């Protein structure tokens, strides 16, 4: 903590969707620091989701995409691996257990609250009932949703409110103790109160892990994040400490975007 250790490092990363003529990302260079929150902002279509989805190789569910460059993931022991080199399903699974993802809309699985949170744990091979119970409880507490759910763990997760569902999805991801959590506009489908709860939760999460969050909400980016990346038309236009980006950006483009003067 306090030190600026890298957890992921994106270098000269370019990405072209299957069938597309133009690359959606062009030579992106972006560090992701350990136990920090990195926000990605930028106008619609600039490639934020595309970059985020490269970081857990979820793009690879679909064939034909082309990419180059490298994305290093640093392990706890300091070693690193280029996740773009991974080829086997097993390696993708290990990667996704370390780099979790939360989507825009809550995505509870059609199963009970308990099973939702236990799902990733079971997949990772944990079968012991009491260990599962312990880790589910811990994850639900970690996602600040234990109080609301502890008496209804066996009920379907589909019965929760949208905000609760999103926190459940965070709990589900946190349960795996990932090194990085990727959030793609996690609050854009939620009311202000649920949004507040999620923001608070994300702030707490950075004690344990590193966060990358895509958001269209400038206040959210400035409130939450330590570092901000401003993307524009597939380029990383500017990356710096969040204070710097919001108070004194070095590019006119960045200033125009964050002040809402965008044509």
């Amino acid at each position, binding site marked *: 903590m306090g030190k600026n250790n890298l957890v992921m490092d994106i270098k000269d990363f370019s990405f072209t969707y299957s069938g597309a003529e133009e690359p959606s990302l062009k030579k992106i260079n972006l560090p992701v620091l350990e136990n920090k929150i990195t926000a990605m902002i930028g106008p619609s279509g600039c490639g934020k989701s595309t970059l985020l989805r490269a970081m*857990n190789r*979820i793009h690879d*569910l679909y*064939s034909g995409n082309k990419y180059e460059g490298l994305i290093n993931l640093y392990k706890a022991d300091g070693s690193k691996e280029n996740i773009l080199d991974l080829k086997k*399903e097993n390696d993708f*699974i*290990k990667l*996704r*257990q370390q780099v*979790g*993802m939360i*989507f*825009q*809309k809550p*995505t509870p*699985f*059609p*199963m009970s609250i308990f099973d939702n949170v236990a*799902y*990733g744990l079971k*997949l*990772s091979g944990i079968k012991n009932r009491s260990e599962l119970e312990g880790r589910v409880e811990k994850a639900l507490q970690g996602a600040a949703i234990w109080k609301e759910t502890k008496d209804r763990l066996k009920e379907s997760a*589909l019965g929760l409110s949208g905000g609760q569902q999103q926190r459940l*999805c965070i709990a*589900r*991801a946190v349960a*795996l103790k990932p090194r990085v959590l990727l959030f793609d506009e996690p609050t854009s489908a939620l009311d202000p109160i649920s949004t507040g709860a999620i923001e608070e939760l994300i702030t707490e999460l950075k004690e344990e892990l590193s966060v990358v969050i895509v958001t269209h909400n400038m206040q959210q980016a400035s409130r939450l994040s330590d570092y901000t990346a401003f993307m524009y038309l597939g380029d990383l236009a500017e990356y710096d400490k969040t204070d710097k980006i919001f108070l004194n950006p070095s590019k006119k483009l960045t200033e125009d975007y964050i002040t809402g003067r965008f044509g």
Partner: protein
Amino acid sequence: MGGKLFRNFSFLSATLSFFLLVGIFAILFTYAQEAMHEFGFDFLFTEAWEADEDDEGGIFGGYVPIIGTLLSTLIAMAIAVPLAMGIAIFLTEIASDAIGKPVSIAIELLAAIPSIIYGMWGLFYFAPIVQSTVGGNGVGLLTAGIVLAIMIIPFMAAISRDAMNTTPLVLKESAYAMGATKFEVIKDVIMPYSKGGIIGSIILALGRALGETMAVAFLIGSVMSIPGSITDPTTSIPVLLANNFAEAQDLEMSSMYFLALILFVVSFIIISTAKFYFLGRKVKG
């Protein structure tokens, strides 16, 4: 004006179909009375189907056609359910568009072929194959069951595929993002999510298999005896009705109405269950 007319018309059609349903039930029930009084519950367990010399009475029991219907349907379902699920999963999750699209269209076309064609094909092409590989004389329970399965697979696969296709992409992606394999995503997300539609398709196919007449008439052998082995010929309710209806009189006729009533009630229960599942899914989603 037009709206009112239309509303009245819809109301009329809706009530009409309801009365039709009740009417059919009432007619079956009425005509079945004689046999119901004569045989009661024993009808279900009597093997004989014999008219007296004078054609005015006799002993009629539903045991053979009921067992034949149940067994041929059971064989058909045992073959069709796993295969149809496999096809649906292949089409939604595994096949590329280049393969999936043509297969999808072929499946829909197969589902539209009239059953008599399956019957003819089964008799001339498939029965000899069964005879030479499994034994028996070609027509019988197994042949009927397999061809029935072939008939209902496309239908079941098409509906299950549509149900599985409704699984939201993000839901699947979330499961992958948790470290799930393709198999686990299918098992834990897609199947539970589309459970209602899948069960619905199975039940509708079951209803179709139970009531299928033409294809089975060609293939089951139409023999009034309990099959001793899986390749033996027997008969089924719809086949017996179709074969005997023209000549039957009095008690035999009433017995056939009794059989028809049994089939009607069973099918009705099955279709209602399917509807219940389809609706149940809509309410939830």
